[in-house]
């Protein structure tokens, strides 16, 4: 049986990897599109920042449950419900942490000097090459920040997990829920142990990002 801490780390890692894959194209589109209603898309993406996690969790629970469109289809294909499963947690976390990945990604991509992109194109490079050779490396610090923020945010997630995953030991009981559980059961020692571990991981992560970003700060000619 997987421990709550390992489950949290696994959830955070899977979520931030998925966010990298989903969030980067989305951020690229946001950074370069001339679409007039871009602000609407940005508002929807930012919603999880202001929404109480229980509210988001409640709606996700309805959608992921057997009566929800997504939940019902999932059940038909896999044979088990999406709610109260690890996959459900991952999907909920991706939505919940989306702004923490997409916003830094977008800011970093938009900050890349357009003249460099113009130079790249006039030297014959395709959009794909321009992205991987120029845009991505120059936006890298911001992309790392987005990755780490979504990782840390998912690691500390509580409300959405509780609503969506319940509290099933070994399957959906993450570290933050285990801490809550231990406090409820007056096991302060266990809660303290888990808390200090989460605190340590979060701190190390943030220090590492900041150190990395300081080192890779290109001076533009």
């Amino acid at each position: 049986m997987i421990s709550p801490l390992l489950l949290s780390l696994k959830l955070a890692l899977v979520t931030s990897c998925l966010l990298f894959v989903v969030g980067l194209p989305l951020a690229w589109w946001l950074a370069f599109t001339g679409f007039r209603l871009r602000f609407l898309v940005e508002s929807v993406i930012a919603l999880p920042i202001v929404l109480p996690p229980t509210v988001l969790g409640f709606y996700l629970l309805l959608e992921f449950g057997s009566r929800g469109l997504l939940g019902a289809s999932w059940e038909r294909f896999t044979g088990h419900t999406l709610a109260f499963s690890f996959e459900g947690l991952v999907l909920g976390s991706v939505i919940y942490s989306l702004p923490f990945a997409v916003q830094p990604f977008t800011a970093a991509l938009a900050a890349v000097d357009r003249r460099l992109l113009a130079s790249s194109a006039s030297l014959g490079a395709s959009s794909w090459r321009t992205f991987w050779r120029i845009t991505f490396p120059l936006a890298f610090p911001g992309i790392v920040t987005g990755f780490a923020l979504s990782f840390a945010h998912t690691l500390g997630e509580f409300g959405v997990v509780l609503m969506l995953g319940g509290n099933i030991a070994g399957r959906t009981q993450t570290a933050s829920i285990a801490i809550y559980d231990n406090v409820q059961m007056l096991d302060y020692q266990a809660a303290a142990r888990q808390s200090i571990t989460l605190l340590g991981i979060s701190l190390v992560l943030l220090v590492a990002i900041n150190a990395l970003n300081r080192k890779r700060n290109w001076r533009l000619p």
Partner: protein
Amino acid sequence: MSPSSAALSVEIHLPLPWFQLECSFRADSEVVVLFGASGAGKTSVLDCIAGFRAPQHGRIALGERTLFCSERGVNLPVRQRHIGYLSQQPALFPHLSVRQNVEYGLLDQPRPERAARVGSILERFGIAELAASRPAAISGGEQQRVALARTLVCEPQLLLLDEPLTALDLRLKSLLLEAIFDWQREHAVPLLYVTHEQAEAYSLSRRVLVMEMGHVVADGEPRQIFSAPFSREQAALSGYENILDAVVEETHSALGTMTCRVAGTALLLESPLANKAAGEAACLALRAGDILVATGRPSGISARNLLSGRIRVIEDRAGMVELRVRCAAGDGPETEFRVHITRGALQNLDLETGQAVWLIIKTHSIQFLRN
């Protein structure tokens, strides 16, 4: 100027916020300077040719290749145009070394060929020893040389230079210009050079296109364009008080001069050589301040035009005095010159209305206008 198969032909119609860009021109494998004040639309023209923006309608072709054609719905992406574009900003990729920057446009080439081409262009522009440096670690002039090498190594079929050397000192600038023009001659491609500095436009090329408010208003040799105001109206506006119709009497190509007769008179003037034949009509312009006045016939003077005349009017103006002087050859019909002198000169020479004077005009103070 050899006729090249890769001539550039441009026809652009594009509404800009402050005027309509309407220009069309052709350039063979030659250096053409696009000259005009800031905001005349020069950079917009380059952007349309390079593909960074699309004209509303028009056609842009490079040799056989149509880069843009509104009628046929063609708009080739920037990366397929094979055009080198260099602006004042070198825009080097800051995370790549000098060598990586220069080889960026050759990434599709096989490795040995790429290495050979990059090596030779780094040598040519004297930046081989910088190959491993990052752009931030080299000087502005070196950065611009790297940007140039990066552009030229791709062997573009057209070069667009948008005031690329403005930030550099004169010595460096002339060195780089020489390198650019050498390359242009070797590869025989059209080169458009944008500048707003007249001195630069004058020295760089044998052909200048003058842009004003989105239109090409003049196209020709810089000597013709800059030594002569464009039209009578413009000449009058830019302070040429004397505008005379004349007829070319004789050309002296060995001396670089011509003899012109002021129309309707027998008065002869020596002017600089212009592209005109004897018997052709010409329009001459002369600043009132470029004419000297003497009370007696001057002798031992280099000026080639000495006209005797009589003062008709003396008018005191702010800061100076304007004389209207009637001149004629012998007893023939007269023509009137406007002459500006200082108040001190008026007092010193003790000039009066009706007095006989000599006007002294240097050959090169006479300008030709468009007829």
